[in-house]
């Protein structure tokens, strides 16, 4: 019998607003699913890292993200109020119900793609969480404050490695530039608001996504400059739809692996 501590439920008037619940549920799933899918992608490196220290760092980062997933999806399930748990949401939804951006579901590829994706996401995640610490919802704000401390490490680490590999050997530079070119058109989805994002912003729960852009541009510009990498001359918001449940084919394969156990052995625990 597991003694999992109950989360202290501080009163939160924002979460009790019935009119807001459908949008808020979706929005919380976006936060949780970004963390879950990126965490899963990073965890694929466990045992395959190019060096022991990298292996451990990637697994640790994945672990942080899975921890954030548990907090966001538990809150999503609570807001939904249908008796589902964070695990139910993670393991028993199909791809169309996932709300992560497409950026995080792309295959990890080599270390260049893995680290560049991590960096582009971390830089957004950091600004988003910073904004969320001021959320009108105390529950959202406390999760953000907790996660932000860990994401600060993620951003430092990925910035450091983007510079080292970008401004590294000819081979590492080429790979990092290729990774940036490939990932860039997916980054914009993180900043493109739809009705769900607008509802969360209007209620004071989340910052306006567009408002995060300037700080992200600054971090990305400085780090890529230091890394001697060139911003691609293509739009960064070409690939959209993940947040609304229209995913690439890659997500299905992730779910097949991630959800297999719960689907084959419903309710299995350890």
């Amino acid at each position, binding site marked *: 019998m597991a*003694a999992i501590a109950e989360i202290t439920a501080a009163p939160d008037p924002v979460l009790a607003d019935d009119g807001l619940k459908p949008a808020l549920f979706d929005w919380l799933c976006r936060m949780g699913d970004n963390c879950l899918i990126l965490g899963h992608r990073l965890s694929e490196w466990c045992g395959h890292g190019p060096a022991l220290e990298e292996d451990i760092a990637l697994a640790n980062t994945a672990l942080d993200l899975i921890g954030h997933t548990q907090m966001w999806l538990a809150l999503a399930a609570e807001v939904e109020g249908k008796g589902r748990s964070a695990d139910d949401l993670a393991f028993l939804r199909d791809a169309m119900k996932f709300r992560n951006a497409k950026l995080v579901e792309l295959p990890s590829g080599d270390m260049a793609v893995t680290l560049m994706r991590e960096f582009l996401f971390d830089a957004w995640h950091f600004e988003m969480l910073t904004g969320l610490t001021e959320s009108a919802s105390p529950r959202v704000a406390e999760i953000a404050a*907790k996660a932000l401390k860990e994401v600060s490490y993620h951003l430092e680490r990925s*910035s450091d490695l983007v510079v080292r590999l970008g401004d590294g050997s000819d081979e590492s530079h080429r790979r990092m530039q290729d990774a940036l070119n490939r990932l860039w058109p997916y980054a914009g989805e993180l900043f493109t608001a739809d009705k769900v994002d607008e509802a969360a912003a209007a209620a004071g729960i989340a910052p306006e996504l567009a408002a995060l852009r300037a700080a992200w541009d600054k971090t990305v510009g400085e780090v890529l400059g*230091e890394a001697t990498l060139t911003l691609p001359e293509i739009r960064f918001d070409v690939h959209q739809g993940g947040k609304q449940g229209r995913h690439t084919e890659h997500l299905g394969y992730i779910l097949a692996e991630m959800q297999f156990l719960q689907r084959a052995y419903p309710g299995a625990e350890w």
Partner: protein
Amino acid sequence: MVNTVAVALPSTDQVWKWLDQVPDPEIPVVSVTELGIIREIRWEGDTLVIAVTPTYSGCPATSVIDLSIEAHLHGQGIGKLRLERRLSPPWTTDWVTPDAREKLRAYGIAPPIDGTAPDGRTAARAARMAGRSNLIVACPRCGSGHTERVSQFGSTPCKAAYRCKDCLEPFDYFKCH
């Protein structure tokens, strides 16, 4: 008329003392109270409520810690117990007690250096120093400050991997968080 039997409940001070004996599962030289993760102990009627805060969000030791607390307090005769997971304010290494820092060092883990938690605003600066740590972490074995960071992450989420360039020993640094 119902006969009530007055049962003296242990004081919360007593419970704090009991929890001083519950070790962290990953770093058993320090206790859960020394780590600063026990945020509150109170009685609600005859139920003992203990608020515990996680160190890192995904730390797998969290549920083991909950189980250890439960088992230890049941062993002390506590019947009704509820553990609360408290997220706010988020755990910081500022709450690691001075005694615990010395225990960590003696155990071979360099204790946290206060005030050096990462701040994402420094990402670009950190990147300019790529590959180098801006911290001098003294080797817990020989005391030398001539050390280098091998990885920002170590064997547990709370630690980073370092190496001493004088005594050549690898060691863990308990990160400031």
